[in-house]
Structures are given as structure tokens and as C-alpha cells.
């Protein structure tokens, strides 16, 4: 047992702390009126810096997660955006891709040279989706991919999109270039939070896919790509939720100490102090749980799947709670745009939805409990 970070993990954390402080990088707190191409510029600069430092290629585990959490502390959307490629998509490629595919597709993403997106969800498919309506049919040189994806984060700016679709033999991952003929990214949807992700629908019409861009197909009883994808999302959302809690705590603490012309600062009141104490308790508890889950997953612990779900549900639910408490302490200043807590409160709401929703996760946790006893 060791609750401390080891040398490698500490080095990784310092690396990320250094990058966060780097003033030559554009400010990630971009305006909510920014256009996808403006956002893409900011994201590219950061991805390149993160990629050059080797951070994006770091293997999953508590060290990587702690660093991701720290990045989310600075900017939740940036942490999420960088992890979509380097964690969610690259996980699938490195687990199931051939050596050639890994060589061709991993490097540009992990070096931060390409923005990646993942296109899985389809309208009305829901959380229990098992097959896709996006279908690839064989043609002379490869396959023709056709379908509609409903919500693709980073869709308008991605260079490469990992599309989940169906071949006769099972589900597969298609690595599609956004610029390919037949790929059409719609306008960003209006979303409650994470507007910087520019989530949009993507239509695919007879997109030509060469065989070397297909990973799979897989027999769903052996490899469940969708579930793997959700598990990766869960880890990302857990880390981002913890970073969001830290961010909200910082803001609320600062606001609580602001002197007033009349009376005491908010921190002079016990109920405000106690609220801060509850926020800190939730934040610390979530962090240890999420780190332990990352350790379990990386070390092949038999309880890793269940622990990962527990961590995700706990962290994402409480990120909403902590953001809400922070906003309450900041009161009207918190309710006014732009400010990081108002944004965090809206952003945090994605956590309980993305990946395994809290409900789906809780059913899986309970199934695991029922199986064990």
C-alpha cells in the first residue's frame, strides 16, 4: 500500500503543473461566443504542448489521472477535450488495432498534432444500445459507411473521428477523416454546458473506408466496443469532475473571504464555513476514490470494473453538488456570467450523463453486488 505518488507519478504531475503555468499558451477560458475555429486554435496550441511533453502518451493509472485532474482544475473543458483523443479513442486503438494501425493513428493524436473525436451515439439509441444503425457495406476497395451520429463532441474541429458502426459480422471502429467526402458535421448543438466542445451531429453518406481504417468487426459476446468506450469515458469524467470540484472550491474560498463594507465576509458565518467544509470533504473523498479506481484498472484488480463505476457515480454527482454550493456562496456574483463557477455548474451536469449514466452505472454496481452474494 502506498498513498503517495511515486517518482514517475510526481514527475508527471510537475510536468502538467509547468504546462498549466506556461504563459505562452492561449488562455483556455475562452469566451462563450467563440466560434469552433477560434476554439480549435486554442485547443491545438494546448494539445501540441501536452503532446510534445509526452503527457498525452502517458499510460493510464493514478499518475496520469492525477495529472488530468490537475489540468481539469485549470480548465475542465480542456482536460475533457484532450482526453477524448488521447484516452478514449486511443485506448480502443491500442487495445484492438493492428501494429500498422497503431503506428499510423496513435502517434498524431498522442503527439497532439491531430484533434480526435469519437462518434458513437445515435438518435433514440439510448444507454442500452447494443448495435448501430451506422452501417458499412462492402464495395470494391473497402467499405462504404452510412449513418447519422447525434452528438459528437469536437465534431466541427476534429481531424480524425472514430466512428462506431456495424458490419455484417459485428461492430467495428472506423477511423474517418473529417475532410473525407460524405462526412458532414452539422452546426454545434446548443448545450447546457461544455459549449467549447461544440458538440454536433455528424452525417455519414457512403464514406469510403479503406480496410486499414477499420478496427474489428468484433463478436459482441467477446468484445463490447460500446462498453469499453463507456468505461473510458467514465474514467475521463471522474477525473474531470474532481478537477471541477477543486476549481469550485478555490473560487468559493476566495469569494468567502471578500470583505464587505457592512458586516463580516461570508466566511465569518458558520453556515458558509460548514458548506466549504462539506465541499472539501466531497472533493477529497472523490479524489481518493477516483485514484483508487484508476489504480485498480491499471493493475488488473478483479474489482476494477465495479470500483470504476462507483468512482464515476460518486465524483460526477458530487461535482454538481460542489459547484452548486460554490455558486450559493458566491450568490449573485456566482449567478452572473461569465464566471468559472456558473460555467462549472453547467459543465458538471454532463458528468452524470456521459459514459455510463449514473442510473446505468448504479444498476451495474448492484448487479455486481448481487452476483457476489
Amino acid at each position, binding site marked *: *500500500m*502506498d*498513498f*503517495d*505518488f*511515486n517518482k514517475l*507519478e510526481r514527475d508527471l504531475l510537475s510536468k502538467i503543473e509547468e504546462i498549466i503555468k506556461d504563459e505562452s499558451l492561449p488562455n483556455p477560458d475562452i469566451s462563450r461566443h467563440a466560434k469552433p475555429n477560434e476554439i480549435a486554435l486554442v485547443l491545438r496550441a494546448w494539445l501540441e504542448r501536452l503532446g510534445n511533453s509526452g503527457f498525452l502518451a502517458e499510460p493510464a493509472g*493514478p*499518475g496520469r489521472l492525477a495529472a488530468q485532474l490537475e489540468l481539469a482544475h485549470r480548465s475542465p473543458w480542456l482536460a475533457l477535450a484532450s482526453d477524448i483523443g488521447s484516452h478514449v479513442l486511443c485506448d480502443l486503438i491500442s487495445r484492438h488495432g493492428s501494429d500498422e494501425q497503431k503506428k499510423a493513428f496513435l502517434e498524431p493524436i498522442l503527439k497532439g498534432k491531430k484533434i480526435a473525436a469519437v462518434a458513437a451515439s445515435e438518435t433514440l439509441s439510448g444507454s442500452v444500445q447494443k448495435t448501430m444503425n451506422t452501417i458499412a457495406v462492402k464495395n470494391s476497395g473497402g467499405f462504404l459507411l452510412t449513418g447519422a451520429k447525434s452528438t459528437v463532441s469536437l465534431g466541427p474541429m476534429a481531424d480524425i473521428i472514430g466512428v462506431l458502426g456495424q458490419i455484417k459480422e459485428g461492430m467495428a471502429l472506423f477511423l474517418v477523416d473529417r475532410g473525407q467526402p460524405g462526412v458532414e458535421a452539422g452546426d454545434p448543438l446548443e448545450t447546457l454546458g461544455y459549449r467549447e466542445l461544440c458538440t454536433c451531429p455528424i452525417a455519414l453518406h457512403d464514406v469510403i473506408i479503406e480496410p486499414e481504417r477499420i478496427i474489428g468487426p468484433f463478436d459482441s459476446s467477446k468484445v463490447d466496443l460500446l462498453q469499453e468506450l463507456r468505461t473510458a469515458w467514465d474514467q475521463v469524467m471522474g477525473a474531470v469532475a474532481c478537477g471541477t470540484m477543486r476549481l469550485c472550491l478555490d473560487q468559493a*474560498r476566495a469569494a468567502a473571504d471578500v470583505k464587505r463594507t457592512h458586516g463580516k465576509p461570508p*466566511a465569518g458565518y458558520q453556515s458558509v*464555513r*460548514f458548506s*466549504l*467544509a*462539506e465541499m*472539501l*470533504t466531497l472533493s*477529497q*473523498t*472523490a479524489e*481518493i*476514490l477516483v*485514484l*483508487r479506481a484508476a*489504480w*485498480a484498472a491499471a*493493475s488488473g*484488480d478483479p474489482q476494477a470494473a*465495479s*470500483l470504476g463505476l*462507483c*468512482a464515476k*457515480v*460518486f465524483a460526477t454527482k458530487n461535482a454538481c453538488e460542489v459547484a452548486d454550493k460554490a455558486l450559493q456562496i458566491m450568490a449573485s456574483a456566482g449567478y452572473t456570467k461569465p464566471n468559472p463557477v456558473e460555467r462549472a455548474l453547467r459543465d458538471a451536469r454532463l458528468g452524470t450523463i456521459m459514459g455510463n449514466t449514473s*442510473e446505468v*452505472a*448504479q*444498476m451495474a*454496481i*448492484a*448487479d*455486481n*453486488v*448481487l452476483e*457476489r*452474494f
Partner: protein
Amino acid sequence: MDFAFTDEQMALKKQVIRFAGHEIVPRCAEHDLKSEFDRKAFKRLGEFGILGLHFPEELGGSGADVVTTVLVGEALGEAGVDGGLALSYGAHTFLCADTIFAHGNDEQRRRYIPKLASGELIGCMGLTEPGAGSDVAAMRTRAVKKGDRYVLNGSKIFITNGPIADVAVVYATVNPAAKHAGISAFIVERGTKGFSVGAPLHKMGVRTSQTSELFFDDCEIPAENLIGSEGEGFLMAMQTVEWDRSALVAPFVGAMSYALKKCAQYASERRQFGRPIAEFQAVKEKLARMKIFIEAAKGLIFRIAWCKDQGRPLNHLEAAVAKLFIGDWSLEPANAAMSIMGGYGYCHEYEMERMFRDGRLAPIGGGTSEIQKMIISKLM
């Protein structure tokens, strides 16, 4: 980072669960119903090596580290041992014996630790007073030095093991004006003239632990019964906080695991509307919430235990976080467990009712949740 227990630790945990499941748990319900201390079970804890686990072998212990000790506390709860016996063990080993071990001199250690480790003697610790609960510095019990003796006057309340203890670690002030700096710790043996105990208090839960007042009426003790030096008592009391936030709360976390197991089994067997209630989402959600609490709480208590093993000074913020989380956030899953069992959950025959009552101590004993929030907000 590495969150794995060693194979030996896991084997010991299993052994404790098996031992407690066979020898102790079957006796819990009856003792709880009668609000009786289970002396035989307590003695068995001593014989099995649990009461003195972390003390060195030459003092009758096994030299276990803190993580192992906490794991064993969790195992007792997970086996289904009632909160009362777990609390008796906690107050005896960590609040009483460990204070003598950590701060006493060699003579005091030799005299008391082996017998406390075996369970031949039972220990208690008296800190709380009628007028000094959360506000320890308001302590009024006085100790006045007279030649080679101290004379104690005052009273203590809510003292676990009070009615049955052979040895008490008692905090009293030698100088009320000095507040914290006047508080000192003394060893008082049962039978000492001027020392008496009240009748056991009737409590909502943890009923097999006997709780009472301690009275000191011109109680004279030899000066060598002072632990450490005068004025060091407050720090000693604070140091027990490390144990309080790990080993003493571990059985609460273990108990939630036991409740989860019972609820899962019950939900699989109990049929309503033509199917096991485990198939209803509302029931599964409750099971999940219990499980999430358990996993979240474990990280907190083992962090404190592990840091203590590294010889680090207690991080009071982390300790308060652990106590607050386990105290306040256990209430909702405990309630969920009751609901899963329906009417049976409310009846004594099904342990859930007792566990619910026992668990309600977590946000009160050893520093209330509000006090933890005060500590956290001051330190953060």
C-alpha cells in the same frame, strides 16, 4: 500509488471474519436486546489477539501495523459484530491502552498493557464531561497534587466501558486557568477510594457497550499514575484522534458491508409482484448507493492508517474529512438498507434495525460532525 493489501493482510481479514462470524455474531442479538456487555466475546477477542494486535510482542501484542489493525476493525464489522462490542474494543484498546502505551513510562506499560491486550483487564477513557463535550477546554474535573499523590474531583459522562472497566485513563486539569495546557492524563484503577461509576445509560444503539458516568470524590491516586507530564493531556487526547478516525470508525464501514451483503441476499430471496425485489431498479439503486459509500469511506480510513504507519504527524484536516464523511454520509445508505428490508428491517430479529441504531453514533461519538466541519473550515 498502490492501494493493495498484502496477501497476509487479506488472509488475516478472512480469518477474523470467519472467527467472529462463528464465535461472536451469533451472540450479538441477545446481548443487544438485553443491553448487556458480552464479556465472553470480549475475552475471545483478547485470546484471538485482536485486543492487543498493534502492541509489541513483549507486551502481549502481535506488533501489527496500523493498516492491518484497521483492516481487522473493518473485518469485525463486516462479519456482523455489533457496534457495541466494536466500540468497547475501540475504547479499550485505542483510547485507554494505547494512551498508556504511547505516553506512559515502562513501568506503566509493563503493568497494564499485557493484561489489557489479553482482555484480563478492561479499560476505559474519560474525557467528556457534562459541561465539556465538544468544548474539551471547558473541563472541570480537577487534579490537585498533594505530596506524592493527586486528588481528583469531578465527573465524566458518556464513558464507554465505564461500568465494567478495571483501568481508566482520566483527563483532569491541574490548572483550569491554563485551559488546554492544564489538562493532564491519569491512570485510575477500579476500587480506588473516591472513584465510583454510575449506572449504565440506556442508549439508542451500541447497547452492548456499557456507558456511564465516572465520579471522582476526593479520589486519591499515587503521583506515579500521571501519564507523561502535567499539561500534556490535551495532546494525548488529540493523538487518539488518529485511531478514532481510522480503527474506531472502521467497524462502521465494515458494518455497511455486512448490511450490503444481508440486503443483497434478502433482495434476491424476497419476492413481490411475481419476482425478486432485487429486480426492481429502486432496490438496486439502494444497493449501489451502499456500495459506493463503502468504497469511498475505505480510501479515507486507510489513508489515515497508512500515514500513521509512515510515522507522519496526523493530518488533522484529512482526519476530520474521514470522520465527517463516515458520520454524515453513512446515514443515507443506512436508511436505504432499512428500506430494502421493508417491515423486517424494522424488527429486531433482522439485524438491520440494530445496525441502523448502532450507526447513528458515527456522527456524534469522538467529535460530532459539526466539530469536524469546524476543524476542516479552520484548516482548509
